[in-house]
């Protein structure tokens, strides 16, 4: 019997009332009296020396308030990077400066050179047209392997090369891994590209900066997943504004998917310019700007080798990855290909020896950082693709090969430094086989054949590390921030509660799910609990929402704070009922004394806390408000198994996703409806990556997928019905809710299922194709089927079956 309230209920989302009536308050809906508008003049070339900027004509244009260039920002800091990676030789990564406005050089298309502040946006744009730039165009580096060669043009002249770091993990295992591979009965090798993507939340980024003359206080309204992080980074490292003079508000935010974690130049600019101009300053990104300034995602080129013994046990795994950093280090960029990727290379399997090498490379492209899954999709994709290839080479069932190597005993310490606390990978695989109706596949394949289509089935497992993260551990790994979360629970006199959380909701439904937990703990209706988030002025210092962490970390902080509330409330109840604290029970919103018929309602006790006439004032302060900071002991490890069925048209190479099934283990579930939605959305993005989406640059570094005409987003007719199940539940062992996080699973688990399915379809059609790089566009699939090289214009890099990575598309290049 499904619950209709509290933990486990599919409570309808209260935030929907405002979203569905158009009453949401997004940042672009905020207009401050007297605001001016800024337009950024951006580089339209990938790499150039700035020899001169002449703003004299522009300054006289109608409505212009002030024009800023890089020189105006010499006195302030650059945009900071929040993670320092140490390389194989114990040296820190190379860390370039990242000015708010370009200084001396531009390093990617979209790099801001000038900022024109004017009375209207049209006037700012017109004036920008009148600025004369003297740019000396320099050779650009786009291809990562070219970028690290001797003599390659340098993105940053003051660094020794374009190599940010060369990271080895676990370095001490390297020789043993090499030896195991050299002695293996079978080694399967795969070279692949994890295609460069653009997160594309539907709401473009917006920043509104404000400065109060009377108080000297700054306010920034911004589209952010983590307003406290922005306040700290921007205030302390860029502008030198102490936190108590700076308020950052992230109101309703229209999707993030990682791209709104980072601190961007436009936020710092609007905040700074508001004081300089004595006017509020607003910036609303155009979609084209979003394509060339929002941090991109993925962009790995990888060679992976899987060694097996004669019984098909995995004995060793070795990977070498080139990871694109773009032109500057975005806030958390260095951590993505390293600690969010290398630590996941064990997957669901008990491979004893693993070595991961990652070379992070600067190129003249937009900075690359976390996008839904961040490092974990890259790990899962290469692992689950190479296992599928191994199964084909060995002539064994790909599901059985996985099962044979599954981790089955927990806790399990991987050879890549993490410890899985719990899981049951056979259970999710069993559930997948059921919900995907794998038994019925052959019959469906016959039906497809009658239509002249080739049907293929792709299956894979995945694991991810979520609930980011134990602060002391990530501190050792180079994080320059803690990764706890916070909550303040304020009980009002008449019994209602407000939860002020450092987590941030931008579509995830915290305002609905968080109250389900608190209401359940106390035994009161959900509508007595309200959630406040997104404003540094009325939430405790918290780290925000990403890495599937809100419930596992933020929810845990809320539970801890609520536990403190309940403990104090019980003491008040004990005093009033003249009983011992330990005899007080709280159930269904009522305090009772064990073994008696005495009782007090929740509201009687909360009222006593604020009207303390009959109250133990000598022992306890009045009031009922508690704060908790929760720092997790470990990551959480959601895992599952995914299946995709595709139909391939042998005439055109067009791939249609016919069925998709996902069996996930997220531990305990608070709101099943919201979990379904998270998984659906993740799968749609994964299908987008596998079949449609590709961020492409030409050789000169021009971004040629900078609109929805060129960058193929999944639309309603591109996606299938989703069959999702999360009934396999092994609760997390180390957080109070037993939850693991569900936000990224779909995007992590789905790309290999799609690609495995297409390869299966082609093989069933008699084509000996072992790999095609994503996105599997019709031209790429047709070319692979016909032994040809796809040459299909700008947005689609050439596809080649993977004999060698040399000379083919790297880093999203055409």
């Amino acid at each position, binding site marked *: 019997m499904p619950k209709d309230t509290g933990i486990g209920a599919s409570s*309808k*989302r209260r*935030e*929907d*009332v*405002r*979203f*569905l*009536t*158009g*009453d*949401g308050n*997004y940042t*672009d*809906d905020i207009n401050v009296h007297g605001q001016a508008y800024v337009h950024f003049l951006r580089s339209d070339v990938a790499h150039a020396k700035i020899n001169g900027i002449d703003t004299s004509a522009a300054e006289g244009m*109608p409505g212009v308030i002030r024009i800023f260039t890089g020189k105006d920002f010499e006195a302030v800091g650059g945009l900071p990077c929040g993670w320092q990676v140490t390389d194989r030789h114990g040296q820190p990564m190379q860390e370039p400066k990242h000015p708010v406005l370009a200084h001396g050089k531009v390093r990617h298309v979209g790099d801001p050179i000038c900022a024109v502040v004017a009375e209207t946006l*049209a006037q700012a744009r017109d004036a920008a047209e009148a600025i004369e730039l003297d740019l000396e165009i320099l050779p650009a580096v786009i291809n990562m392997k070219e970028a690290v060669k001797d003599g390659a043009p340098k993105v940053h002249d003051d660094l020794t090369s374009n190599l940010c770091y060369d990271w080895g993990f676990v370095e001490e295992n390297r020789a043993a891994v090499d030896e195991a591979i050299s002695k293996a009965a079978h080694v399967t090798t795969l070279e692949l590209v994890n295609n460069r993507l653009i997160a*594309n*939340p*539907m*709401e*473009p980024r917006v920043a509104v900066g404000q400065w109060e003359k009377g108080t000297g206080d700054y306010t920034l309204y911004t589209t952010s997943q983590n307003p406290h992080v922005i306040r700290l980074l921007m205030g302390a490292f860029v502008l030198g504004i102490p936190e108590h003079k700076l308020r950052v508000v992230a109101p*309703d*935010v*229209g*999707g993030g*998917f990682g791209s709104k974690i980072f601190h961007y130049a436009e936020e710092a600019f609007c905040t700074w310019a508001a004081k300089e101009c004595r006017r509020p300053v607003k910036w*609303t990104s*155009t*979609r*084209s700007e979003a394509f060339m300034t929002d941090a991109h995602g993925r962009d790995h080129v990888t060679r992976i080798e899987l060694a097996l013994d004669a019984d098909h046990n995995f004995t060793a795994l070795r990977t070498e990855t080139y990871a694109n950093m773009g032109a500057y280090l975005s806030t958390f960029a260095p951590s993505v290909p390293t600690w969010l990727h290398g630590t996941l290379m064990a997957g669901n399997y008990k491979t004893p020896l693993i070595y991961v090498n990652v070379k992070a490379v600067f190129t003249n492209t937009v900075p690359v950082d976390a996008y839904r899954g961040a490092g974990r999709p890259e790990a899962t994709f290469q692992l689950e693709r190479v296992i599928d290839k191994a199964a084909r080479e060995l002539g064994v069932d790909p599901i059985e090969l996985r099962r044979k190597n599954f981790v089955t005993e927990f806790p399990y310490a991987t050879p890549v430094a993490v410890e899985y606390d719990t899981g049951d990978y056979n259970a999710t695989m069993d559930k997948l086989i059921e919900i995907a109706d794998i038994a019925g596949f052959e019959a469906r394949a016959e039906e497809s054949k009658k239509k002249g289509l080739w049907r293929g089935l792709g299956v894979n497992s995945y694991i991810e590390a979520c609930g980011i993260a134990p602060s002391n551990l990530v501190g050792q790994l180079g994080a320059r921030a803690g990764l706890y979360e916070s909550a303040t629970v304020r009980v009002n006199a008449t019994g209602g509660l407000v939860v002020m959380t450092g987590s941030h909701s*931008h*579509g*995830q*439904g915290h305002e609905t799910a968080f109250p389900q937990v608190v209401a359940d703990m106390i035994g009161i209706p959900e509508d007595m609990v309200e959630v406040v988030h997104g404003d540094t002025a009325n939430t405790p210092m918290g780290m925000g929402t990403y890495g599937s962490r809100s419930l596992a970390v933020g929810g845990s902080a809320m539970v801890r704070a609520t536990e403190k509330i309940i403990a104090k409330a019980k003491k008040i109840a004990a005093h009033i009922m003249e009983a011992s604290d330990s005899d007080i029970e709280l159930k269904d919103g009522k305090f009772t004394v064990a073994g008696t018929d005495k009782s007090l309602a929740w509201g009687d006790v909360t009222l006593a806390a604020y009207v303390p006439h009959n109250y133990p004032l000598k022992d306890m302060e009045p009031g009922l408000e508690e704060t908790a900071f929760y720092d997790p002991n470990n990551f959480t490890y959601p895992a599952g198994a995914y299946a995709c069925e595709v139909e391939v048209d042998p005439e055109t190479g067009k791939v249609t996703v016919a069925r998709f099934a996902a069996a996930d283990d997220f531990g305990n579930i608070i709101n099943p*409806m*919201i979990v*379904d*939605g998270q998984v*659906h*959305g*993740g*799968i*749609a*993005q994964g299908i987008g990556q596998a079949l449609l989406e590709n961020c492409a640059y030409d050789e000169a570094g021009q971004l040629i997928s900078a*609109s*929805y*005409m060129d960058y193929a*987003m*999944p*639309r*309603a*007719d591109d*996606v299938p*019905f*989703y069959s999702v199940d999360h009934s396999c539940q092994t609760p997390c062992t180390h957080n109070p809710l037993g939850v693991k996080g569900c936000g990224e699973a779909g995007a992590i688990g789905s790309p290999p299922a799609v690609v495995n399915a297409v390869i299966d379809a082609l093989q069933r059609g008699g084509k000996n194709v072992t790999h095609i790089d994503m996105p599997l566009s019709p031209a790429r699939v047709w070319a692979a089927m016909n032994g040809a090289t796809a040459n299909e214009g700008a947005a689609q890099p050439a596809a080649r079956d993977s004999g060698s990575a040399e000379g083919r598309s790297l880093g999203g290049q055409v």
Partner: protein
Amino acid sequence: MMPKTPLSFTLNGSETALFVDPGANLLDTLRRGAGDLTPKLGCAQGTCGACTVLIDGEPHLSCLTLAETVEGRDIATTGGLADGPDLHPLQQAFMEGFAAQCGFCTAGMLMAAKALLDRRPNPSRDEVIEAIGGNLCRCTGYEPIVDAILTAAARMQGRSA
């Protein structure tokens, strides 16, 4: 400076009159001029559908519509969809079916759906998918949106979904 042009139209049933700059688009005019913030700016290139409004009952991308072309016409936005406190059946079905997550595409999606149901009260699933083909959603994976529109259609026709 070019003179502004007087413009009057009906917005969700109310007479609206204002002055617009030459070349102003309808989205800006609604948001900045008329103060109706419900249509959203997603791309300003006619490719995402977040700004969809109805002009004389037909769905249009307000970001690509010259404001001056709506003189004397009837504009409907999501701001006028609910009947006082009562949600429109589409809004109700979207809520029950969890068809909005971040909410940013939702206003455009609802107007595209309303245009479809006004024209075809009993659409097929494929017709719904086609009708929202110009509206991007990055959160939901579309299935709940399609289901919600079909549910609303059924209810509006007095059928059970």
